[in-house]
């Protein structure tokens, strides 16, 4: 049986894919208004380039392809407004007072009673990470998203976002430690 080629039906885009595109964006972009805006920009861009759709992919994956570019554009905009380099205004190191002078932990990391394979099956835990990500500053959140969610190589992030490798490492290190603390408080709720 020959599969009929996909066609585009822009009247139905918002109802069919609007929420899906929005949720995908919200994982990556902290501000809900900005996320709505990105969905709108994506669909408008799709409408304008309707002619280039060749029916090789589905309508949905074509739209997602455009969305991914628009999200990266949004990240680049932040680069132009303010730098991704570290400044004194940035969140300080969550590990700053984490060690005694002899190098031992003050507040030792707890045993999170799971492992990476099992953790991903725990929906509450996935939600908790999303919640904790929203507590990161926009700068830290964007860099964390590029590295861990988009899976970009460190070199690529440095190039795209104009950032020195050492600063990238410091931002990721701090972001991970903030997330770690947040998850420990909100998910494991471990008593001190």
């Amino acid at each position, binding site marked *: 049986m020959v599969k009929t080629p996909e066609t585009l039906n822009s009247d139905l885009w918002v109802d069919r894919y609007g929420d899906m595109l929005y949720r995908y964006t919200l994982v990556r972009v902290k501000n809900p208004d900005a996320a709505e805006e990105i969905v709108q920009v994506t669909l408008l861009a799709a409408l304008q380039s309707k002619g280039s759709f060749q029916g090789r992919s589905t309508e949905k994956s074509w739209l997602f392809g455009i969305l991914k570019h628009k999200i990266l554009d949004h990240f680049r905009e932040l680069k132009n407004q303010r730098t991704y380099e570290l400044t004194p205004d940035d969140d300080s190191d969550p590990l700053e007072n984490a*060690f005694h002078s002899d190098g031992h932990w003050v507040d030792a990391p707890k*045993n999170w009673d799971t492992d990476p394979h099992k953790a991903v099956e725990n*929906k509450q835990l996935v939600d908790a990470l999303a919640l904790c990500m929203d507590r990161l500053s926009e700068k830290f959140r964007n860099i964390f998203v590029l590295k861990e*969610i988009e899976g970009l190589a460190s070199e690529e992030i440095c190039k795209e976002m104009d950032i020195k490798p050492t600063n990238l490492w410091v931002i990721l290190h701090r972001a991970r430690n903030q997330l*770690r603390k947040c998850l420990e408080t909100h998910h494991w709720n471990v008593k001190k």
Partner: protein
Amino acid sequence: MAKFNTWMTRKLRITCEDTTPLISELMDHNLSLGKRLRLKFHLAMCTVCRFYKKQLEIIRALSRKLRGEEAPTQQKAVLSEQARTKIKDSLKQSN
């Protein structure tokens, strides 16, 4: 041999404070042989730093789970009515 062991231990011993940046670094790229050995040596003895390493690995695994087009998250957030109307209107106008 005992002398050699003491020498090795002195060479390889690092504190928890020195270990955490190495674990974070390991998440992003391969470590040099020296760093790798010191990390291994410390982790073999230190339960707490092993917990720390596992925590970072869990965070990484959870992030990957958020990657997909229909990731299970954001309590099923939906576009506001206002946004839907706005987007639909703008699409109509430029069609």
